[in-house]
């Protein structure tokens, strides 16, 4: 298959592609990662180890990955979509059998050099697959029930596997991300209305099932929901994390307590301060200005992605870009909502800031896809 089928008038080739990269987007990603480095330095008590240095290495590697992915024509990735999805599915299956268990969840594969979280990979490959699916699907079948059911199954299969790890946060992201893809693709709004109604009923059922023989969620998941609904109920037990996180965040004030002056994180009152709760340290040390600053950079990334998608006349590229942007948004919005007490603690890291290899590499790869779409857009 040649790019000629895109009716392009002009396509950059070779190193010239570098000039067509979406450079503002790369700068914004680097800025976010930079914030991450600073915070990891701070929570380590003013030390580059154990978190900042590995994180920088990974980001460097991730940046390389982004460029490489960006250089590869977007149609190659479209053709890879099914394979990538199946590969992710295989990895998820592998986790079931040979996964590493941590904190009661079996989510990781030990690859020797690093631990890989296949569910992270699945978020992006699912988006790829759905973009490719709607690119392939004849336009008049978009809202046909059978052709709606198929992508729903494509979404629910990995969701079920992730949920059984158990990992509620990632499952939610998979469903939300996949749903967004279908929405972008133009599936009739009535389906979504139905799902919303069904969703509300499900939530009702989940609470109703508690303690019954057909209990849907794990006990600890119920406790997390309880804690979310009333953190003060058990301030030293399950509510401890969220209470301390809110104290840290709230005590930042306008300008924060100063770099490395956050008492909540420095004195270990904050849980998971280098991963899921890193935003609270940022908010504590740099205050409202710092927190809003990071939120703004994130929103600018979304903005640049949406602009890129809307100016791209290739359907796969547009859908993929929008999908990646939405997944990214869900990532940080859920994390921020979680640490500010607006959402239950479901264990979602702050993208590109939280310490963690899988998420960083997968996201950089995903933005590589966005860049590829940008570079190879029909002009």
């Amino acid at each position, binding site marked *: 298959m040649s790019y000629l089928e895109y009716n392009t008038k002009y396509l950059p080739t070779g190193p010239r592609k570098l000039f067509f990269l979406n450079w503002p987007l790369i700068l914004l990603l680097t800025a976010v990662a930079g914030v991450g480095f600073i915070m990891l330095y701070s929570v380590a008590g003013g030390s580059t180890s154990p978190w900042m240095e590995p994180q920088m290495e990974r980001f460097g590697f991730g940046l390389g990955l982004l460029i490489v992915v960006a250089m590869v024509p977007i149609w190659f990735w479209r053709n890879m979509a099914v394979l990538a999805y199946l590969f992710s599915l295989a990895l998820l299956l592998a986790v079931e059998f040979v996964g590493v268990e941590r904190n009661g969840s079996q989510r990781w594969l030990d690859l020797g050099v690093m631990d890989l979280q296949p569910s992270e990979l699945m978020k992006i490959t699912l988006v790829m697959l759905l973009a490719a699916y709607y690119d392939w699907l004849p336009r008049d079948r978009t809202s046909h029930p059978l052709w709606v059911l198929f992508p729903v199954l494509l979404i629910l299969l990995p969701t079920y596997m992730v949920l059984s790890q158990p990992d509620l946060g990632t499952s939610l992201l998979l469903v939300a991300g996949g749903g967004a893809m279908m929405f972008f693709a133009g599936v009739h709004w009535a389906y979504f209305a139905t799902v919303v109604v069904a969703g509300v009923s499900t939530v009702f059922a989940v609470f109703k099932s508690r303690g019954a023989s057909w209990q849907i969620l794990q006990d600890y998941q119920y406790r997390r929901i309880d804690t979310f609904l009333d953190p003060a109920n058990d301030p030293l037990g399950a509510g401890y994390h969220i209470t301390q996180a809110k104290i840290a965040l709230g005590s930042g004030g306008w300008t924060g307590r100063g770099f490395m002056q956050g008492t909540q994180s420095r004195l270990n009152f904050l849980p998971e301060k280098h991963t899921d709760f890193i935003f609270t340290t940022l908010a504590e040390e740099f205050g409202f200005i710092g927190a809003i600053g990071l939120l703004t950079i994130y929103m600018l990334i979304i903005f640049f992605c*949406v602009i890129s998608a809307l100016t791209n006349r290739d359907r796969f590229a547009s859908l993929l870009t929008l999908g990646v942007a939405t997944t990214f948004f869900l990532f940080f919005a859920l994390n921020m909502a979680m640490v500010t007490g607006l959402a239950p603690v479901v264990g979602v890291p702050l993208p590109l800031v939280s310490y963690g290899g899988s998420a960083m590499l997968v996201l950089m790869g995903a933005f590589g896809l966005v860049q590829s779409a940008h570079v190879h857009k029909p002009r």
Partner: protein
Amino acid sequence: MRRPIKDDGVLQARMTRRALVIGGAQLGIAGALGLRMQSMQIEQAAQFRLLAEENRINIRLLPPARGLIFDLNGRPIAENEQNYRVIIVREDAGDVAETLKRLTDLIEIDPSNIERTLEELDKRSPFVPITIADRLPWEDVAKININTPALPGITAEVGLSRVYPWGADLAHVVGYVGPVSDYDLSQGYLSDDTDPLLQIPKFQVGKTGVEAKQERMLRGSAGTKRIEVNALGRVMRELDRQEGTKGQDLQLTIDARLQSYVQARLDGQSAGAVVIDLENGDLRAVCSAPTFDANMFVRGISVKDWTDLNENKYRPLAAKAVQGIYPPGSTFKMVTALAALEDGVIDAEETVYCPGHTDVFGTRFHCWKRVGHGNINLHESLKQSCDCYYYDISQRVGIDKMAIMARKLGLGLRHDLPLSAVAKGLAPDKEWKATTRGEDWRVGDTVNASIGQGYVLSSPLQLAVMTARIATGREITPRLIKSIDGIEQPSGLGPSLGINENNLRRVRQSMVDVTNHQRGTAYSARILASEVKMAGKTGTSQVRRITAEERAAGVTRNEDLPWERRDHALFVNYAPLDNPRFAVAVIVEHGGGGSTTAAPIARDITLQALYDGTPPLDAYPSAVRGRIQEQQDRINAMITPGATVQDRA
């Protein structure tokens, strides 16, 4: 397959629209997040800041130094000494077992301490310091400090602990301190004390005596330090500190040297003695024998020592001088005499016939002298301690007036002293018997009371106060605390008692003759030296009933009775005769006769007080001078000023 882009028109437009919808929704969510942050970080910032501060800042109390206690002459009698202890911090110690082994090789530590330390180390966080042993001698501290590199995590620390330099001599007066107990806080004397210091584990509070009664004063108030802690409670740094105020220093009226002498003089007896300064009511010595070493309690008394103290039949823990109540015996006769004289029912020269016994409504009351004293007046009756005279006059004056006189002289009422368990004693009257026993007062009760037997009970302290009041005619109140933080406390010298001076003079003259007239009951215990004389009164109070059969067969001699059935020996006196300075009361439990047992002790105490040290030997009967000299040398060696318990041991 060609991909005609134009065909995408409709869906392309829908995608754009939907992307904008989702984008808008995202912007809305981001806005909501921003608002949430604004609400938490700006509107509620102060509240969250406060919570964060509460999280990280702990306030620790700094115990103040306990106030010191001095004697009349400024000799310390309760001090704080530096107490060295050795502590271990697990996280710094590395191999705990190995480190402890090295420590035990270096200095001697009780194996039980090591065991307890290991147990605690297991339970506590690794950064919590655990005390291995305390009260280390300075040499051990030096050894630890020199070997610091070989003893990781082990340090020697210094704290303050209470020490009583006079050890046993003042144990009943000063008392001792000990760790505050749950009982103290719930039901004990600290139950309404809200001082946060009491929440410190093992905080030392007064347990008995002045230490307990003046606890508030001696304790001082806590200082505070604010420290920053992390989530695990580890101390990160000290933020600031505010020193507390030291407890107030007390100066007692006790003369430690005299106290020590009296204590030594009473040694071997179960006895109590009190010396009062007549100029101001100051208690110069308040002694109970046997006694115990107060330091033993501060260090933590062993089970064996505790059992020994409790099982000793002489009751070393009882403060007999203020707490013990005894029938005052013949020392009460002054009360009966003064009550009768003041009431006018007798004339001092009037005589009463003493045949050796008196019959009252069919009951026979005996005089101590079987053959009787014959016709006897007030003066002779006190001097020779005739009982029948008092049987007679007491029936005339009546118990109620005797009780009033007794209280006027300081008997039967609780003197307000900062000591544990100051006894009230008993000056019985008709109302007392009616309310407590529900019985009518009988004449026989009055007759018994007239010679200080029956219901009458008094402590050595009360007898000393009585003597002081008779000697001065003024209301002398005993005083134990001379000054607080250098501020002199009110004198105990009160106004005149309002007793006719002539009557008092008659009684005093009789007391002079008790010790200075050949036929006086305490003539053998008189002071020989001419410049000072003392006046006194003997007392021998029965603790058993003598049956008619026994009386017929001859009363069993004290020496032939088991100890606990022998008579109590009492003696009260004052000296010198003109312008008296000291009043003394001595009780020797089951000591036999007042004249033979108590009077010599009282004389020796009086001389010691008057001369403030070794009195001239010619004050004593020549027969006892050798013994006195020997005794004096021994006691002087014991009470070398400033000598500590350890030196004397």
